[in-house]
């Protein structure tokens, strides 16, 4: 059975909510029903058939041929199966996903992987602000799974992260891992100002000195070389990084001392 493919007809004139187009929700639907699903968020909104040409039938492997910055909530609540988007996406891609995998071949908007608890979300291009983070009013950020941004992530990647692995390979904006509760954020390409602001626990691994550290982080000589090399090996084994991020010499900063202070920023010394 060939993959269920949504081929984009033209750039949509409004933002779309793609959350209905996941395997669990399409499994029992006939094609003509799928075409009627409402996607638009304006008052005269579009349905699937207005935006996409459908082909294929295997709902466990969904493909979007063509993307748009107006594709919101792609792969939301995904629990199994795969989704590949050959293009860009908008906000909240993989929102609260718990399993399966999503590949975005272009760039993503804000809140990619928001509140995800499992599965794998990989973005080949850039990601917007609040990657993995909670929406307004929520307290829980990413709580599991693997989130990879091959390009650059905006501000506050990993906001309120609790568990899981977030890897950003094209550098992060400001306040990476803000309010982190636990978990690991690995950054290649450096970070902007004050990573780890308000972090309680958890680890930020970064290949060079961030633009600015908060004064509430303090350098600490003792660092766990076993953890660093394990982390490096894991990133390579997962196909996330080609070479060790930290290497042998690491500087370690503990914080955020404004709060609990049990988090750490590990910086590869050769890049500093």
């Amino acid at each position, binding site marked *: 059975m060939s993959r269920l493919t949504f081929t984009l007809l033209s750039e949509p004139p409004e*933002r779309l909510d793609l959350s209905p187009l996941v395997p669990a929700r399409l499994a029992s639907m006939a094609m003509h029903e799928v075409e009627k699903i409402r996607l638009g968020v304006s*008052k005269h909104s579009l349905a699937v058939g207005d935006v996409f040409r459908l082909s294929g039938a295997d709902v466990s492997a969904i493909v979007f041929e063509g993307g748009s910055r107006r594709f919101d909530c792609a792969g939301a609540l995904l629990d199994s199966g795969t989704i590949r988007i050959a293009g860009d996406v908008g906000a909240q891609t993989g929102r609260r996903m718990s399993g399966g995998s999503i590949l975005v071949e272009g760039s993503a908007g*804000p809140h990619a992987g928001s509140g995800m608890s499992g599965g794998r979300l990989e973005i080949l291009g850039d990601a917007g602000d609040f990657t993995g983070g909670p929406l*307004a009013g929520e307290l829980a950020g990413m709580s599991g799974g693997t989130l990879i941004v091959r390009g650059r992530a905006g501000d506050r990647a990993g906001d309120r992260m609790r568990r899981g692995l977030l890897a950003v390979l094209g550098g992060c904006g400001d306040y990476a891992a803000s309010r982190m509760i636990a978990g690991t954020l690995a950054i290649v390409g450096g970070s902007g100002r004050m990573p780890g602001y*308000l972090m309680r626990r958890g680890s930020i691994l970064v290949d060079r000195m961030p633009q*600015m550290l908060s*004064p*509430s982080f*303090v350098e600490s000589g003792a660092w766990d070389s076993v953890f660093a090399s394990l982390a490096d090996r894991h990133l390579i084994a997962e196909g996330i990084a080609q070479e060790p991020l930290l290497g042998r010499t690491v500087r370690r900063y503990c914080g955020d*001392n404004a709060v609990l202070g049990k988090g750490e920023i590990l910086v590869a010394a050769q890049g500093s």
Partner: protein
Amino acid sequence: MAVAWIGNRDAPVQHAVEQAAELLAASRCPVISIDTDIHGTRAAIALAERIGAAYDHPFEGVARETATFTDRGGIFVSPGEVRRRADVVVVVGDLPAYSREFVSELAETVPDLAGDNSRSFFSVTGTPIGPFPADNQGPVTHLSCKGTDLTGTVAALRAHLAGRRISSPVENADRLSKALGHARFTAFLCSGAGLDDLALEMVQGLAADLNKKARASILLIPTSEAGWGSVLVSTWTTGLPLRTSFSRGAPEFDPWRWNVGRMIEEGEVDLHLWIGAGSPPAKNGDSKLIALTKTGQPVADAAITIPIGEPGADHDAVLLSARTGTLAARPASEPSRMPAAATVINSILEHLDPTC
């Protein structure tokens, strides 16, 4: 004031209202910017519901103040209690210009409910506060931390006061420490106009730390009184603050998606209704503009311009008063024939196609 404008042509207000109703009913993605009084906001939200519009205020600072409540909560104090009780006042970040008067008032008075009838001032900001100079010459002690910005300084200050290590000292932090040791009631003054989300959260955390042993609270001074008033109205009418949309029927709150400025910039909007005595921002993109504003001439590039008065000046109004921290009835100070926003919007509502 029987005059309005359709494009640059004079038109009777009645005619302009009818035209506006037609445009709003036909719009695929209408948005409304609200910068007006309580009853104007009530009417604007009723219109948004009717036509399936997103609505917003034009103040980023108000969005940050909203997030303080929606995302975290915290401990807050009324301005009256600050005046009567606060013996230590810490200003963190810039405050909105209009609050200068209140800060001066605090400088000229002493607490009468607690403390020893004196008030000391600290400031975590580089710019002057109220009547005070920016250096340490006046009665204000300035707190600063080398090599970082305001957000970093607040973090360093909180860590220092909690007895944890910091990498760069906060100048005068010990003076604050000492003052806090004797304080009966500490008030932090801050605003979304002067602090980012994380710094606002850090100040809340700092106050929470202090409350373990003593009393401290935060006076959050809204970036815009009208903006915060609209937040209150929106919250009781829809259950949600601004940056909410009715486009799918029920109200949905999403401070990113329904940010009207962003929506216009990214070409998602076909019609923008501006409601505010102040001028609308310069037209941006392809969307049409309907301007309800205090003007004697058509707004550049607006499809329709309808004049409205300034609440509390041209007409009686209910407004949020940051000075009292609640809503207040303000009779017109210079009554004119300029109508209230609510009057014009209700008139548009009456002219909407009932099937809309």
